[in-house]
C-alpha cells in the first residue's frame, strides 16, 4: 500500500510539472486569444437566459421561451409595437381602415425576402393568416384571429383583411406571434427550422445549451449591430450571473435572481437596467375544481395573500403592484390594489362562511425561480388563515404544461403570464386552465372590442373589474425586466413590452 518516499516525490513532481505545463499553455492560449479575441467578441453576443424552449414552433407549442427567441429576430409581422406600446409599421408600409372599421388594407414593403430565399408577397400574408385559422396552428392564442373573416390578395404588394366585426384588439394581435409571417415552402419543420423575414436566421441549435442566430446578409432593413448571437440557456439564475462575472456571457436578460443585483450595481464594468414587462405573476386557482370553485374561497385567498410582502421577499421588492391581471403598459390598466387589501380576519370569515376551514390543498409549483420564490411565502401566508398548501414541484415547461396547463390537473399554481394583452386569453375562455366562468364578461368583452377607442378602454376596464371581483386569479405583481450586461453594450431594450427579446438593435460601443 505505502509507496516509498522517492516514488511519491517523483509522482508529485510529475504532477507539478503537468499542472505548470497546463497553466503555461492556458496563459499563452489566453494571450494569443485576447488580441484576436477582441475582434471576435465584437462579432458575437452571448445572452444568458433561463428556461430553454422545448422546440422552436410557437404555432403548435405554448410557452414564452419560443417567441422570446424567435419573434422580431427570425419572424416579423406586418406591424410592431415600439417601446412605448404604440403600433408601428414593419412589413407593411402603411394600412387603411375602412369606414365601418371592418377591413384593413395593407401596403407591403417591397424587396423583402425570407431566409430561404423566397420573396415575401401578399400571398404569404394570406397563407400565414389563413394558416392561423387552420388546424395547423395548435397554440391557444390562435383564437385572436377568430375575428378575421377573409384575407384577399389585391396585388403582390397589397392585401385586404376583412373582419367579421370591428375589433380594437385585432391590429394589436397582429404585432404578436399570431401575426408572424411564414413562407408556404418553409413551414415543414418549424420546430427545428424556422423560416422568417427577420434580421436573423437560425444558425444552430445545440439542445440543452444554446440557440445561435446569424444575421442575414439579405435582410431588407437595417443590419443587426452584432452578426452572431448565442442565446445560452442556463439551469438557474445564479449560474447566469456567474457566467456574466466570468465573462462567459455578455448579457443576462430578464435576470431571475434579483438579490444578486447588488453585486453589479455601482460596478462600472456592468450596466443594470430595471425595466417593466407585460408579464403578470398569476397565482392561479382552478375555478372548476373544489375548493376553488367557490368564489368565497378564492376571495379568501386574495385577502390572505399580502402581495406587497410577496414581492418584497420573493423578488427583492422589484416589480409593480397592480391588483388586477393587467400590466401598466396596457391602455385599459387601472390600479386595483384596494379591491383586496391584506386582511387575515376577512379571509378567515370567508373561509368559515364557505365551510372551508382547515383546508388542505396541493400547490403545483413550476420549477422556475420566481415560482419557487413566490410559493414559499404564499404557503406561509395561507397557513395563517388556515389553508394548508402542500407544494408539489412540476418540472417546467414539460410537466407543468402537460399536467396543469393542458390537463387542468391542479388546484393552485403560480406562473408568469407573458403574452401581451392577455387578460381575455386567460379569462374569457372557460376551457383555459384557470377555468373562469366567463358568462359575466363575455358580452362586455365583445362589446368593448367592437367599440371605438374610448369605448374599448372603458369596456375593458369593466371586464377586468368583474374578473377581479370574482377573484378568478390573484395577480401578485407585474414582473420586472431586470437586465444586467457588460457596460460596453449599447441599445439593450430595458422594457419588455412585447413577447420578444429583440436583438438587432444591440451593438458593441
Amino acid at each position, binding site marked *: 500500500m505505502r509507496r516509498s518516499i522517492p516514488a511519491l516525490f517523483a509522482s508529485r513532481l510529475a504532477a507539478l510539472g503537468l499542472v505548470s505545463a497546463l497553466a503555461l499553455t492556458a496563459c499563452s492560449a489566453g494571450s494569443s486569444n485576447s488580441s484576436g479575441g477582441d475582434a471576435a467578441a465584437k462579432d458575437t453576443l452571448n445572452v444568458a437566459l433561463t428556461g430553454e424552449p422545448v422546440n422552436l414552433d410557437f404555432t403548435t407549442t405554448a410557452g414564452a421561451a419560443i417567441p422570446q427567441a424567435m419573434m422580431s429576430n427570425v419572424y416579423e409581422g406586418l406591424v410592431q409595437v415600439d417601446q412605448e406600446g404604440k403600433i408601428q409599421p414593419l412589413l407593411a408600409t402603411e394600412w387603411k381602415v375602412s369606414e365601418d372599421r371592418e377591413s384593413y388594407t395593407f401596403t407591403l414593403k417591397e424587396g423583402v425576402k425570407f431566409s430561404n430565399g423566397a420573396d415575401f408577397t401578399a400571398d404569404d400574408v394570406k397563407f400565414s393568416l389563413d394558416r392561423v385559422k387552420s388546424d395547423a396552428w395548435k397554440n391557444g392564442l390562435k383564437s385572436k384571429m377568430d375575428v378575421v373573416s377573409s384575407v384577399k390578395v389585391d396585388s403582390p404588394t397589397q392585401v385586404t383583411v376583412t373582419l367579421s366585426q370591428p375589433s380594437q384588439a385585432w391590429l394589436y394581435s397582429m404585432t404578436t406571434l399570431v401575426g408572424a409571417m411564414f413562407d408556404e415552402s418553409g413551414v415543414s419543420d418549424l420546430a427545428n427550422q424556422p423560416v422568417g423575414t427577420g434580421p436573423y436566421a437560425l444558425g444552430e441549435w445545440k439542445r440543452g445549451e444554446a440557440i445561435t442566430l446569424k444575421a442575414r446578409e439579405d435582410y431588407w432593413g437595417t443590419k443587426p449591430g452584432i452578426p452572431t448571437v448565442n442565446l445560452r440557456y442556463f439551469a438557474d439564475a445564479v449560474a447566469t450571473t456567474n457566467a456574466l462575472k466570468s465573462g462567459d456571457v455578455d448579457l443576462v436578460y430578464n435576470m431571475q*435572481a434579483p*438579490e444578486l443585483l*447588488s453585486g453589479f450595481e455601482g460596478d462600472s464594468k456592468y450596466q443594470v437596467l430595471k425595466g417593466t414587462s407585460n408579464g403578470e405573476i398569476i397565482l392561479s386557482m382552478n375555478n372548476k375544481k373544489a375548493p376553488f370553485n367557490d368564489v368565497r374561497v378564492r376571495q379568501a385567498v386574495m385577502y390572505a395573500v*399580502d402581495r406587497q410582502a410577496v414581492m418584497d421577499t420573493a423578488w427583492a421588492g422589484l416589480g409593480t403592484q397592480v391588483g388586477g391581471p393587467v400590466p401598466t403598459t396596457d391602455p385599459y390598466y387601472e390600479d386595483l390594489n384596494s379591491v383586496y387589501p391584506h386582511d387575515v380576519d376577512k379571509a378567515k370569515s370567508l373561509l368559515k362562511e364557505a365551510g372551508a376551514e382547515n383546508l388542505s390543498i396541493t400547490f403545483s409549483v413550476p420549477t422556475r425561480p420566481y415560482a419557487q420564490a413566490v410559493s414559499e411565502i404564499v404557503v406561509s401566508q395561507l397557513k395563517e388563515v388556515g389553508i394548508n398548501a402542500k407544494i408539489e414541484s412540476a418540472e417546467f415547461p414539460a410537466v407543468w404544461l402537460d399536467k396543469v396547463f393542458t390537463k387542468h390537473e391542479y388546484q393552485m399554481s403560480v406562473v408568469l403570464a407573458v403574452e401581451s394583452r392577455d387578460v381575455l386569453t386567460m379569462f374569457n375562455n372557460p376551457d383555459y386552465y384557470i377555468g373562469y366562468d366567463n358568462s359575466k364578461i363575455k358580452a362586455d368583452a365583445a362589446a368593448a372590442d367592437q367599440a371605438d377607442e374610448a369605448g374599448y378602454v372603458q369596456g375593458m376596464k369593466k371586464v377586468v373589474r368583474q374578473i377581479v371581483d370574482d377573484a378568478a386569479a390573484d395577480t401578485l405583481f407585474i414582473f420586472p425586466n431586470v437586465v444586467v450586461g457588460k457596460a460596453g453594450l449599447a441599445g439593450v431594450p430595458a422594457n419588455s413590452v412585447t413577447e420578444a427579446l429583440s436583438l438587432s438593435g444591440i451593438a458593441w460601443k
Partner: protein
Amino acid sequence: MSTTSQQAATEGRPATGGSTSTRRPRRRRGTLNLRIGASLVAVVVLAALLSYVWTPFDPTQAMPSDRLQAPNATHWFGTDKYGRDTFSAVLQGARITLLVGVVAVGIALLVGTPLGIWAGMRRGAAEEVTMRFADILLAFPALLMAIMFAASFGASTVTAMVAIGLGSVPGFARVARSGTLQVMSTEYVQAARASSQPALRMARRHVLPNIAGMVVVQCSVTFALAVLAEAALSFLGLGTPPPTPSWGRMLQESQQFLDSMPALAIFPGVAIAVAVLGFNLLGDGLRDRFDPKMTGGKS
C-alpha cells in the same frame, strides 16, 4: 470520498490486520473517534428531538419585516429572505436528515444483508449472480440513480429515501458476504454443517452474530453517505419539497446571498458537516472496536 470509506468498510480492514506494535495506538484512536463521532451524532439527534418540543420560531412562518437579518439575540442564526428563523430551520432540518438516514439505511440493511449472507453461504452460481449484480449497481452512481427516481416518481422525501436506500444495498451485500465467507471457513461452522443443521438456523445462530459488528459499521458509514445524498438531492430541488426545512435546500436558497449574508449558507453547511463527520467517525470508531483482528476475535 464515498468509494474510499465504503471500500475501507467492506474490504480494507480484514486484510490489513494489526500487528502487535500498531494495535494499541490504533485502538486508542478508535476510542477517540468513537467518542467524537458519538457526540456529534448525539448533537444532531438532540436537535431533531428538541425541534419536536421547542423551536424559537415556527421555521415555516415568514416574517417579511424581519427578512435577511444577521445573527442576533432574537434570531440566533439570522433570518432568510422570507424572514424565517434560520436556527429553527436548522433544528427542524435535523429531522429530515435523520429520517432519510434511518429509512435509507434500513432499506439497505434489510435487503443487502440477507442477500450477502445468502450469497456467502450458497456460493457457486447464486453467489456469482448476486455479487456481479451488486457490482453493477455499485458501479452506477447512487446520486444519479436518485435523480432518475426523482424524475420518474416525482421529487419527495420518500423517493429520496428509497433511492438512497437501494443505492446502498450493494455495500451491505458485499460486507455481509465477505463476513459470511470468513465465518463459513471456521471449524465450528464446519462442524455445524457436518451435523447437517438447516441453513436458516446456521445463518441465524452462527453467521449473523459474527458479522453483526461489521454490519453496524456499514450502517454508520452508509448513514453518513445518506445524509450527504439527501442534502445534495434537496440542493438540486429533488429532495424534500418546501417549505419543510431541509439543510440541502437551505444551502441552495442561500446561494443568492453568499456575498451579502454568508450566515445563511454557513449554518446549514456546518450542520451537514457535523452530521456527516459524526456518522463517519462513529463508523470508524465502531470498526476499530468490532474488528475481529484487533480484538483478538470474538468467535
